[in-house]
C-alpha cells in the first residue's frame, strides 16, 4: 500500500485542522480510538470500536473489488454506488416479497438477487461501451443518480414503503438475515459488553471470499488474462484473439455483481430494511479510493478497506470526543486520492520536478489515453 500517500494526507489534514484553530492531535486521537480502539479516553470499549470498523470495512472490500477489476481492463467503474444501491433494493424487495421462506432458500435468493441487479446496472455501461463506445465514467455517473432516485421512489410513497409518512422500507423476512459472528445473546459477556452489541456479521466471510475470487479470477484464469490484456492494449489483445467487446461486457457484469452483493449483504447483515440512510451512502465512491490505495491487489484492497472503515468508525468518535466534524474524514479521503493520483510523494522525493514527471499513474490505472479519447470509436471486432 502506498503509505506515503496516507501520511501525506494526514499531514495536510493536520494543517487544515490547525489552520481553523483546532488541535489536530486530539482530532487524530479520536480517529485512532474510534477506528482501532487505541488510546481511548472517554471510556469507549476498544473491542466495540474494532467491531464497528470491521462492519464498515465489509462493503468496502466487496465494492473495492468491483472498482479494481474493471481497472485492470482499462475501465473506470464510478458506478459501484449505484450498483450497490440496486443490489440493496433487489435484496430488500425479494426479502419482503418472500418473507416467509426459510433461510436456506431465502438467503441465497436475496444475495443472488442483489448480484443480478448490480450486474444489470453495470452491464448497461458495459454494453454501451462495447457497442457504441459511450464512455463508462459518464454512463455510470448517470446510473448512480437513477439508482438514487429509484431508491427514493421505492421507499417514499412507492411499493416498498413501510407506511405513510415514513422514509424506510418494510423489514425483510427473518430468513433473509445474515447471522452475526457472535451469538445475539445479552447474557454472554465478551470484552465487557454483551455479545449482542458486536455487529460483525458473516458477510465478512463473503467479502473476504470476494477478494480471494478477484485474485483467483485475475491471475489464475484465462479470462483474467484477457482482462489484463485488454487493459494493457486493446489492439494487442485483439491480435491475440481476445474479444475486446466480450471482455468489456463480462468484466462490467462481474464488477456489478460484486457491488450488488455488497448492497445485499449490507441489508441482510446490518440494516434488514432500506432507510433514508442509503440516500447519503458513499460506499461506492469510497471504493474508488480503496481500489486505488490497495493497488488493485486482493490483500491491498482488504487493508485499504480496513483503513477507510477505521476512518469512518473513527469519525463519529472524533466528533463526540474532540468536537471536530466527522466530515474531516472526507477531507482526508480526498487528500489521499489527490496524493495517489498525482503521486505527490514521488514528486516530493524527486525534488518537485514540475512538468517533467512521467505520467504519474499508479500501475493499475488504465493509461489516461483510454479515458476520454476512445469514448467514441467502438472497437472494431475481428470476425
Amino acid at each position: 500500500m502506498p503509505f506515503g500517500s496516507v501520511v501525506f494526507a494526514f499531514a495536510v489534514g493536520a494543517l487544515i485542522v490547525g489552520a481553523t484553530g483546532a488541535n489536530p492531535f486530539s482530532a487524530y486521537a479520536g480517529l485512532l480510538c474510534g477506528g482501532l480502539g487505541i488510546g481511548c479516553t472517554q471510556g469507549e470499549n476498544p473491542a466495540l470500536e474494532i467491531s464497528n470498523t470491521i462492519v464498515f470495512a465489509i462493503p468496502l472490500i466487496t465494492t473495492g473489488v468491483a472498482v479494481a477489476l474493471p481497472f485492470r481492463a482499462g475501465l473506470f467503474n464510478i458506478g459501484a454506488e449505484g450498483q450497490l444501491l440496486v443490489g440493496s433494493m433487489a435484496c430488500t424487495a425479494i426479502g419482503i416479497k418472500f418473507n416467509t421462506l426459510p433461510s436456506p432458500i431465502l438467503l441465497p435468493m436475496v444475495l443472488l438477487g442483489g448480484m443480478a441487479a448490480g450486474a444489470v446496472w453495470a452491464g448497461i455501461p458495459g454494453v454501451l461501451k462495447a457497442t457504441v463506445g459511450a464512455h463508462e465514467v459518464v454512463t455510470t455517473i448517470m446510473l448512480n443518480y437513477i439508482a438514487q432516485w429509484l431508491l427514493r421512489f421505492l421507499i417514499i410513497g412507492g411499493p416498498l414503503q413501510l407506511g405513510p409518512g415514513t422514509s424506510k422500507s418494510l423489514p425483510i423476512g427473518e430468513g433473509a438475515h445474515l447471522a452475526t459472528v457472535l451469538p445475539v445473546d445479552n447474557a454472554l459477556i465478551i470484552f465487557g459488553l454483551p455479545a449482542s452489541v458486536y455487529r460483525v456479521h458473516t458477510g465478512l466471510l463473503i467479502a473476504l471470499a470476494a477478494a480471494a475470487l478477484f485474485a483467483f479470477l485475475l491471475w489464475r484464469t484465462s479470462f483474467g488474462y484477457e482482462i489484463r490484456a485488454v487493459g494493457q492494449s486493446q489492439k494487442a489483445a485483439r491480435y491475440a484473439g481476445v474479444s475486446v467487446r466480450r471482455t468489456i461486457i463480462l468484466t462490467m457484469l462481474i464488477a456489478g455483481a460484486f457491488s450488488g452483493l455488497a448492497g445485499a449483504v449490507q441489508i441482510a447483515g446490518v440494516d434488514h430494511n432500506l432507510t433514508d440512510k442509503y440516500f447519503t451512502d458513499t460506499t461506492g465512491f469510497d471504493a474508488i479510493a480503496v481500489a486505488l490505495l490497495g493497488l488493485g491487489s486482493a490483500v491491498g484492497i482488504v487493508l485499504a478497506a480496513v483503513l477507510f472503515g477505521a476512518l469512518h468508525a473513527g469519525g463519529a468518535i472524533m466528533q463526540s470526543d474532540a468536537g471536530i466534524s466527522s466530515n474531516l474524514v472526507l477531507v482526508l479521503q480526498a487528500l489521499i486520492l489527490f496524493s495517489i493520483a498525482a503521486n505527490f510523494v514521488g514528486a516530493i522525493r524527486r525534488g518537485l520536478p514540475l512538468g517533467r514527471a512521467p505520467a504519474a499513474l499508479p500501475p493499475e490505472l488504465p493509461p489516461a489515453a483510454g479515458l476520454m479519447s476512445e469514448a467514441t470509436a467502438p472497437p472494431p471486432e475481428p470476425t
Partner: protein
Amino acid sequence: MSGLEDIFRLLFTANLWQATLAAAVLLLLPALGGVISERSGVVNIAMEGMMLTGAFFAVVADLAWHNAWLATGVAVLAGALMATIHAVVSIQFRADQIVSGIAINIFAAGLTVFLANRIYGLQDVGHVGPTEGLPNIDVGGLDQIPFFGKVLFQQNVVVYMALVLLVLVHVVLFRTRLGLRIRAVGEHPQAADTAGINVYLFRYSAVITSGLLSGLAGAFLAIGVSNTFVPNMTDGRGYIALAAMIFGKWTPLGAFIACLIFGLGQAIYDNNSVIHVSPYLLSMLPYILTLVVLAGLVGRATPPAADGLPYVPGSE
C-alpha cells in the same frame, strides 16, 4: 392518465417557465465551465464540488459582511481556487483527471461541512437576510409583456448575467482567435504547441474559468435561490451540468438547450403538489435522457480529441 393532464396544464403557466429558466441557469453556469475546460482538453467532473464550495463561501461572506456582491466575489474566487487544485493536479502532475475530479467533489463535501462546524458550531449555518441576497430584477416595461415578461424579465440578476455569458462563451469559442486556440489545445496539443501556443497556460486558464463559473452558480444557489447553506446543497447539479454538457455535444448553445430541458424537469418537480406522478421518477429523466444520447440514439456525442490526455511536451 390524470398525471399527464396535470403536467399539460402546468405547461401553460408563466410561473413554470420562469422557474424553468432559473433552474436552467443554475445548470448552465457550471455546464459552460465544463465546455470551456473540456474544449481545452481537461476532463472536468468537479463542477459539483466547485459549485458547493462557492455556495458555502457565499453564505459565509454574506453573513459576515452583509453584501451580496462581495459574497458573490468570494464565492467565485473559492470556486476558482478549487479549480486551481484540479488544474495543478491534472495538468502539472498529469494525474488521472477523473480521479482528481472525484477527489475535488469529496474534498468540497467534507471541507464545507467541516468548516461550517468550525465557524458556526454544530448547529445550522445562519440565514442570510431577505435584502442581503442576490436581487431579483424586473426589467422596467418589458416585464409587463404578457407571459414572456414574467418568464424572461422578472428574474434574478444572475439569470441575466448567465445569458450574457452564454453568448460570450459561444462567440469566444467559435468566432475568435482565442477560441480557436482553446479548441486547438483540446484537439491536438502537440500541433498547438508547435504553432507557438502555450498549452499549459491555456489549459490552466480554461480550468480556472470553469471554477469561476461554477462558483458563481454556487452563489446563485446559496444566496439567490436559497438563503442559507446546507450540507451537500448542490445535490448533484454539478453532475447534471456535466450531463448537459455532453447532451449539448460540448457546445455552449447545445448545453443551454439541455439545461432548459433539465430545468423544466426541475420546475415540474418543484411543482409536485399539483401533479400526481412521483417526483422521484421525474427526477431520473435528465440522467435517462443523457444515457439515450450517449447510446447514440440521438446522434453521436463526440468529445474533443485530446480530452483527458495530459500534455507531455515533446511527446507524440
